């Protein structure tokens, strides 16, 4: 699939006629250009179909006039035959435009959707912090759909009504110009009707849509707060409120229905007025032998045919407006800057794992103060570095800078002695196994979640990794063992289980750098101990940086960095740090020692009573 939509395609598309014709809209112009050939053929068949539409009334006219003139039956049979032929050709055209235009429409839907999703995968994590999932999903659905509809239905309706408004009046004026003028006269009111209703329908439609979002939000609220609602036994009141909102929604919908339901019949009425005039004027002309009866009948058929294109013109305007608004919403995303994937010069292909921070200061875009200040340390392969600090001290931020989720000032982070910017992002991230505190698992089997980062790897042993991650016991409790489906659609794992699956997933890719961001927070003390033991084995030659607020997780680290409000306030090994009286670390330690003490005590109590 091509990704032409998202790469600014230079002056070419912007200079094209199509670009100007669709109101300088890049996405619409791109799509129409891409499918210009089938669209052209489609429009051509549509035009041909509209020309054919002229003939059936003419044939009817000829037949009636032939009957009146007492012509032989063979002539009438000939007209009937022509009638069949015209309809046969019409049928072929109807097939043709559908195949050409509707297919282009579906294909453009596919293309926009694919490009949009591709773009999402290329956007940096910052983007997803700012944009809500609901909004992105509605772009991928509603907005893609209205762009697609313009390329299909919108174009069809527009072209159909334009062609019709040319062919049918031409035929009418050719038959009898004066009568045609009379019949068409009331239709001059149509543009005013359209103008009058357009704005009203649009604003009422929007009001109803907006209220629908409110109704959904309130439904969501009542379900999220169900515990409170039940505890307070206020189901009745919540229901009453929801009912009231539903009523308001009904009222808005009916307001919309009133204008929408009047618009169609009114259009129909004005066009049909022409028929009333025809009835008077046409009869007079037939009686005075100015025209034949057949002509009058043909005129009637033509006038009836004009109802549709009049209304269709209105539809095509709203198709266009919706598509325009939607493509603008999509472009907001397409215009976002991608992650910088590759350096200007090809960097090293392999990473051995020395991570160095050189006086790094970091501030989140738009934030008022630095999240990290003067961070300086080196983590060598085969060593463990631990980050300790309370919530908000900067541990997660620091770890997130290494895989470049956020961009550190250039040169402030080095890997194997080279600035991190010199590495290809793919190679960099493949060399890092990152486990976050609240890891995300996908709707796949447990086994597939484990091999997620490298499904083709056959050298690794799944059994061993599952054992090392202390998942063996959990597998026994899962309905289908390692084939159990996880994620949104599957089994809900506990926080600790999720963390351990994520650890297995990280080990599987066998990366030289391991980053554990408070990964063991939901794991109990015994399992933690075993995991730490396994970690020691698994990462003997690797660079391990882990953050935790549990002393037990960090006490054996080769260096411990104590973070406080974004700065390293203390560093050293455990035995040195606890000796510093009244330091942050020794206070943590003291506090947790007591807690652990208690835990052990409770353990012994529990063991005695159960």
């Amino acid at each position: 699939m091509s990704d032409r939509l998202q790469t600014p395609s230079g002056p070419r598309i912007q200079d094209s006629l199509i670009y100007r014709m669709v109101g300088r809209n890049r996405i619409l112009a791109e799509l129409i250009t891409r499918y210009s050939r089938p669209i052209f053929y489609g429009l051509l068949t549509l035009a041909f179909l509209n020309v054919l539409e002229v003939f059936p009334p003419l044939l009817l006219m000829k037949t009636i006039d032939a009957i009146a003139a007492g012509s032989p039956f063979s002539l009438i049979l000939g007209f009937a035959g022509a009638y069949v032929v015209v309809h046969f050709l019409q049928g072929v055209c109807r097939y043709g435009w559908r195949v050409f235009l509707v297919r282009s429409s579906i294909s453009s839907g596919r293309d926009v959707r694919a490009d949009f999703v591709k773009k999402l995968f290329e956007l940096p994590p910052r983007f997803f912090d700012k944009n809500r999932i609901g909004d992105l999903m509605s772009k991928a659905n509603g907005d893609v759909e209205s762009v697609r509809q313009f390329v299909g239905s919108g174009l069809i309706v527009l072209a159909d009504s334009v062609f019709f408004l040319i062919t049918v009046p031409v035929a009418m004026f050719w038959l009898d110009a004066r009568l045609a003028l009379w019949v068409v006269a009331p239709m001059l009111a149509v543009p005013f009707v359209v103008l009058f209703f357009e704005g009203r329908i649009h604003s009422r439609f929007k009001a109803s849509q907006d209220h629908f979002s409110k109704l959904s939000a309130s439904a969501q609220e009542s379900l999220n707060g169900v515990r409170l609602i039940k505890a307070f036994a206020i189901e009745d009141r919540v229901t009453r409120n929801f009912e009231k909102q539903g009523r308001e929604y009904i009222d808005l919908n009916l307001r919309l229905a009133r204008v929408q339901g009047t618009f169609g019949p009114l259009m129909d009425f004005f066009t049909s007025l022409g028929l009333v005039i025809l009835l008077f004027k046409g009869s007079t002309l037939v009686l005075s032998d100015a025209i034949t009866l057949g002509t009058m009948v043909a005129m009637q058929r033509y006038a009836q045919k004009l109802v549709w294109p009049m209304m269709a013109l209105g539809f095509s305007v709203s198709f266009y407006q919706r598509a325009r608004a939607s493509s603008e919403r999509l472009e907001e995303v397409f215009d976002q800057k991608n992650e910088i994937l590759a350096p200007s010069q090809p960097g090293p292909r392999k990473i051995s794992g020395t991570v160095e921070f050189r006086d790094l200061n970091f501030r989140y875009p738009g934030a008022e103060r630095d999240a990290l200040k003067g961070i300086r340390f080196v983590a060598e392969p085969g060593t463990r570095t631990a980050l300790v600090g309370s919530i908000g001290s900067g541990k997660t931020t620091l770890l997130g800078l290494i895989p470049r989720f956020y961009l550190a000032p250039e040169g402030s982070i080095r890997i194997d002695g080279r600035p991190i910017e010199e590495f290809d992002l793919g190679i960099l991230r493949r060399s890092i196994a990152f486990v976050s505190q609240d890891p995300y698992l996908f709707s796949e089997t447990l086994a597939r979640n484990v091999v997620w980062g490298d499904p083709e790897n056959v050298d690794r042993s799944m059994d061993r990794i599952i054992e090392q991650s202390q998942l063996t016991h959990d597998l026994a409790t899962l309905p289908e063992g390692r084939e159990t489906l996880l994620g949104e659609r599957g089994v809900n794992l506990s926080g600790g289980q999720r963390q351990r699956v994520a650890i297995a997933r990280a080990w599987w890719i066998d990366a030289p750098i391991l980053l554990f961001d408070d990964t063991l927070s939901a794991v109990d003390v015994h399992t933690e101990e075993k995991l730490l033991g396994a970690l020691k084995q698994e990462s003997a030659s690797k660079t391990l940086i882990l953050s935790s607020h549990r002393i037990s997780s960090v006490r054996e680290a080769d260096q411990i960095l104590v973070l406080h409000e974004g700065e390293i306030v203390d560093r050293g090994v455990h035995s040195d740090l606890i000796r510093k009286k009244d330091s942050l670390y020794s206070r943590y330690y003291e506090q947790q020692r007591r807690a652990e003490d208690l835990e052990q005590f409770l353990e012994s109590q529990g063991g005695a009573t159960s």
Partner: protein
Amino acid sequence: MSLDAYIEKEDFRTAKPSLVVLVKLLKELFQQKRFLGLGILFVILSTASALYEPTLFGQVIDDGILKRDVGLIERLGMFYFGLLVIRAGSLVFQAYFFEKLAQEMMQRLRMKVFHHLQRLPLSTYDRTPVGRLITRLTNDTSSMNEMFSAGFVTLLGNFLLIVGTLIWIFVLNWKLALVSVLSFPILIYFSIHFSRKLVTSYRETRMRLSALNAFLAENILGMKTVQMFRREAQQLARFDETNEQYCQDQMASVQVYSYFQPLITWCSGIAVATALAFGGNKAIQGQLSTGELVAFTSYLVSLFQPIRDFVDRWTIFLSGMSSAERIYGLLEWEIEPDQTKPLESHFQFNRGRGEIVFENVTFAYNGVDPVIRNLNLRIAPNEKVGFVGHTGAGKSTIISLLLRFYPPTSGRILLDGVDLQAIPVRELRAVFGLVQQDVFTFSGTLRENISLWGDREISDRYQRLAGAIGIEPRLDLELDERGSNLSAGERQLLSYLRVAEREPRIWLLDEPTSQIDSETEKRLLEQLFSESAQRTFLMIAHRLSTVKQMDRIVVLNRGEVAEMGTHEELMKLGGIYRRLEAVDREQRVSM
């Protein structure tokens, strides 16, 4: 790899609209007799006026023009104008009444679903993602709405038009009619054939789209993980594959239409041509008037438009039907027991003694690993009891059991001597006032969040409690999402005041005071206790400073009572409590 895991199969169980659901829907429809009757009346009126038009033109030709009766032509012209007014008017009213009908029906159904959701037991909420339930409430009712206002009306109108036209042309000239509709059996055969195909491909398309969306949502949520493991290309390839299949499915539906539309055109061409040939022959022989022939061909042409529409609307109808099926499916989910009973004897228990007794209570969420083990405990009327213990000791479970969010696995709990299971659940819950750890806020003002839309005005109690915290609450503040514009003090006040306003017999405090410092917290509780001296209090606490003021402290460990007594007694005992106390003190120093 396909995205099959993302398809919620139960949502696409049936390919055919089920008869049971259809009957249920029709019942709903007949609930709105007035609008249904009016709507149908106007449909008949508009259909009749549309039906009469060709006949009128036939009359103009035969009796007016050919007989040169100008007066008749003028009368018929005026009549035609009147007919147009009637047609336009009845179309307007028809649209309005059917919209009204659809909206009222949808409101009823929406409320039914809402009501049902409110009555589902909490254990159902634990299992089901909230998003799926919301979809039922909003999207499914919307697509049913579309089915009614767009699908149903058009189907009904078209059906009437087709049947009416057929009858009328047979009345006009049955021989000619018979010859003209010779092609109909073919058309009907193919209509059925194509709609069957449409139904299947339509279902496939919907399934594929729902999988695409589920996959996309998951990948947006887990984007960091995708990017960290460099899985973008693979994930994108999976998306593209299904996207392509989705596109092919859509193409397949279009293909069906593409065959169907020319077929209708051909049939209509053949029908009209036959009528022209046969009718023309008869007209020459003088057996048929020109007006009749014109009218006849008019009818034949207009017969095919509703058939075309009919097939078009079929998918709207189907999508509405599958939504209806999901909605009715949900309405069959089991609700909390005796939720249906009204809250009649509410005051009986709320004025009771306020005594709670746990008798050999054991409870396990999954039925296997007990969180509460054989708990025996009596809480005297107006006693103030604190529960402490480390995480997982079963403290919060006690509250869930008292509120009957879950039934005990064995044993029983008595309120004023009556088994909880025997008290209507909402009546029971009205006895308790729960102060939660996380304050859930609804959209609306702080005042509305305190009164929770109750009938009474907020009493002046709020000033006393606010005074204890030392804040000036902004009662008319419009709350942001999750109440993020509330101050910590206001948040705390809200959680207490909301309960205090209900004047419950028994207070349940679930780790209530995490927002404010211990001094303020102490003042707030003192104020609360002095106002509600004649009330029973159960408090679960992390911070021991909070429970010190209670009459009795229960130390829970692994679902059992480990120690019990006043603060002083427990300190003297030197057990778990004493150690907890030491940790607590340490924590307060370092935080």
